[in-house]
C-alpha cells in the first residue's frame, strides 16, 4: 500500500502545480435593483445610457421589500447593486451599517424636489436618496353611494348608518382590521399621535403617543362603530374587495389600488381624510420612495451622476410616476401630470407627516396593530389595548440601547 500512497502523493503534487487561479475581473457595469414596475423604465434608460457612454447597465428585478432584505446580506459582503430603489423608512436601518452613500444635489436640482421628500431622505443633514415618489393614503368614496365627501368622522358614521338602513349597499365605511398605517389618519384626526416631534420636525422617541388621549378616542370611535354594527370586521383584502364590488361605500387606502379600482369600473372619488371632533384634519403618513446608492459600490460617483443627470429629468420622473400611480416627488413632473387623482392624493397629503423612520418605529408597528384588532374584536377596551401596547413598546425601546449608539456623528 505504501507504494500506492507514494504514487498518489506524487500525482497530486503534479496536478496541484498545474492549477490556475480564476480571478474575477472588475468591470464598470452599473447594477440597479428595482421592482417590477420601475425596472422596465430603468432598463430603457440604461440602454440609452449605454449607447451614449458605452457603460453597460444591468437592471435586476426584485420584490420591493426584498431589495432591503437582500442588500443587508449582500452589501456587507461587498456584493450588491450600485443603485437601489427603496422607501424612506429603511433609512435608519441602512445607514446604521453605513450602507448608503451620501448624495449631493446642486441647489438648482434640489429646488425641483418636494422639500418633504428630501427631508424624509435626510438624516443628520446628509441626503441619502434621489426621491421619485411621495405616497400617502386618502379617503375613497363610491360616488354613487356617497356623492359628497364627508368632512368629519361623525359624518362618516351617519352616512354609513344611512346606507345600511336604506340598503343601498352592504356596508358604509370599511377598515383594514389591525392595520395601524391606515388607522393613523383617523387617529391623528382625533388628536392622537405616535411619536412627538421637536421644533425641527424630528421625531422624539421618548414621547410615545400610542396611548395618548386622542389615540384612544379614535379607537373608541371605531370600536363603537363595530359594536353598534355600523362597521364590519374586515381584513385588508376583504375591505378592498368590498369597495371594488360596490358593496362598501367608503374606505381609506392608497394609490396602489387606483389601477385596480379603475379596471373594476367602480365609480369613485378621492378626498382629504375627514377631520376629528375638534376640527383636526386627518393627516396620513407620508411615504417617500427614492433611488439610493450603495456606499460600497466601486462606482459611487458614476451612480450618483446617472441619477442626477439621467433619472432626475421631467420625462423619466413622469414615467416613474405613471407606472407607480403615485404623485411624483419631482415638482416639474407633477406640474405636467394631468391625473386628477394624483392631485387629490397630494391634497390629502398636504397635511401629512413623514412616516417616522427612527429605528424605534420598528418596535411600534406590531404592538400598535395588534392593539387595534384586540379592541375592535372586543377583547380589550380601547383604553386597555393602547395602554398595554404603549407599555410593551416602551419596554422594548428601553431594551434596545443600540438605537442611540448607531446614530452617525
Amino acid at each position, binding site marked *: 500500500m505504501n507504494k500506492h500512497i507514494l504514487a498518489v502523493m506524487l500525482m497530486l503534487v503534479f496536478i496541484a502545480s498545474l492549477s490556475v487561479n480564476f480571478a474575477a475581473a472588475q468591470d464598470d457595469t452599473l447594477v440597479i435593483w428595482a421592482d417590477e414596475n420601475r425596472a422596465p423604465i430603468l432598463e430603457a434608460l440604461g440602454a440609452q445610457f449605454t449607447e451614449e457612454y458605452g457603460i453597460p447597465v444591468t437592471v435586476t*428585478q426584485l420584490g420591493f421589500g426584498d431589495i432591503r432584505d437582500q442588500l443587508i446580506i449582500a452589501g456587507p459582503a461587498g456584493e450588491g447593486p450600485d443603485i437601489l430603489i427603496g422607501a424612506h423608512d429603511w433609512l435608519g436601518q441602512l445607514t446604521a451599517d453605513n450602507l448608503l452613500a451620501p448624495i449631493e444635489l446642486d441647489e438648482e436640482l434640489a429646488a425641483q424636489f418636494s422639500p418633504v421628500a428630501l427631508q424624509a431622505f435626510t438624516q443628520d443633514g446628509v441626503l441619502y436618496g434621489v426621491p421619485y415618489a411621495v405616497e400617502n393614503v386618502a379617503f375613497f368614496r363610491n360616488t354613487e353611494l356617497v356623492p359628497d365627501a364627508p368632512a368629519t368622522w361623525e359624518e362618516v358614521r351617519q352616512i354609513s348608518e344611512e346606507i345600511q338602513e336604506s340598503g343601498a349597499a352592504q356596508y358604509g365605511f370599511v377598515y383594514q382590521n389591525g392595520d395601524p398605517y391606515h388607522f393613523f389618519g383617523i387617529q391623528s384626526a382625533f388628536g392622537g399621535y405616535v411619536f412627538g416631534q421637536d421644533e425641527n420636525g424630528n421625531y422624539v422617541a421618548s414621547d410615545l403617543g400610542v396611548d395618548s388621549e386622542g389615540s384612544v378616542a379614535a379607537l373608541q370611535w371605531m370600536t363603537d362603530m363595530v359594536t353598534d354594527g355600523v362597521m364590519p370586521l374586515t381584513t385588508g383584502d376583504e375591505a378592498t*374587495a368590498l369597495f371594488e364590488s360596490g358593496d362598501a361605500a367608503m374606505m381609506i387606502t392608497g394609490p396602489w389600488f387606483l389601477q385596480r379600482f379603475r379596471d373594476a369600473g367602480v365609480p369613485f372619488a378621492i378626498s382629504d381624510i375627514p377631520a376629528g371632533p375638534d376640527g383636526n384634519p386627518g393627516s396620513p403618513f407620508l411615504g417617500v420612495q427614492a433611488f439610493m446608492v450603495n456606499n460600497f459600490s466601486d462606482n459611487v460617483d458614476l451612480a450618483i451622476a446617472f441619477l442626477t443627470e439621467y433619472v432626475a429629468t421631467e420625462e423619466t420622473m413622469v414615467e416613474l410616476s405613471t407606472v407607480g400611480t403615485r404623485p411624483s416627488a419631482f415638482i416639474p413632473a407633477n406640474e405636467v401630470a394631468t391625473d386628477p387623482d394624483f392631485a387629490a392624493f397630494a391634497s390629502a397629503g398636504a397635511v401629512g407627516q413623514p412616516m417616522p423612520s427612527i429605528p424605534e418605529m420598528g418596535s411600534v408597528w406590531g404592538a400598535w396593530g395588534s392593539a387595534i384588532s384586540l379592541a375592535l374584536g372586543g377583547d380589550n377596551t380601547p383604553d386597555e389595548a393602547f395602554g398595554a401596547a404603549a407599555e410593551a413598546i416602551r419596554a422594548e425601546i428601553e431594551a434596545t440601547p443600540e438605537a442611540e449608539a448607531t446614530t452617525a456623528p
Partner: protein
Amino acid sequence: MSEITKAVASPNVDQKEGYWSARVTRERTLRLVIIAFALVYALFPVLFIMSSSFNPSGSILGQGIIPRNASLVHYNALLNSPNNPFPLWVWNSVKISTITAVLAVLISSLSAYAFSRFRFKGRRTLLLTVFLIQVFPSTLAIVAIYLLLQTIGEIIPPFGLNTHAGLILVYLGGALGINTWLMKGFFDTVPRELDESAMMDGATNFQIFWVIIFPLVRPILAVVAILTFVGTYGDFILPLVLINEPQEYTLAGG
C-alpha cells in the same frame, strides 16, 4: 363502517372470487366513492387557483369558481413580457429540480444500501446523526449559505452565487437526510437471499446494488425523486437570495 375497513385493508382482489362478484362490486363502488370525495377535497382549491388566474383583478375574494369576467391578461403578461422571460424560468426550474432529484436519489440510495446491508462500527451513530442534524432549524442558515457560495464562487466561479450549479449543490446537501431513512426502510424489505446468491456468482457489491437491488426498489426511488423534485421546484427562499440575475431565475424566485 366495517365495509370501509374491509375495503381499506385488503390490497388485492381475492383470487377465489370473480372480478364481478357482488362483494367485489360493492367494494369497488365504495372505493370509488371515497376517491371521488378525496379528489374533490384535493382539487377544489386548485380550481380556485386556476380561476383566479383568469380573473383580471388578481384577487380571489368574492369570485365564484367561474370568474365573472374571464380574461387572459395574466397569461398574456406572463408569456409575453420581455422583462419576465417566464418560459425561461420554467425551464430553469425544471432543469434544476430534475438534476437535483436524480442526484439526490443516487446519493441517498447509495447510503441507504450501505445502511441496509453493511454492519460496521458507528452505523447506529451515523444513522442517528444524519437524522438529528436535519432537525436543526435552518431558517437562519441562508446568510451562511450566501457567504459560503460567495467564497466558493470567488475560487470556482461556476459554483458561486447566481449559478444553478451552486444552487443544486446546496439542495443536495440535504439529500442524505430523511431520504436515506425512507429508502433504508424499503431496502430492508428486499430479501437478502438475492444478494447472497449473486455474491456466490462473484458479483461485486456495486453490481449487486446496481443490477439487482436498484431495479427492485423502483417504487421508493420514484417517491424520493418526486419528493425532491417538488421540494426543489416549490422552494423560493434560496433562489431568491442566491440568484440575482433574471436570466438565471427559477420560477418561484421570479
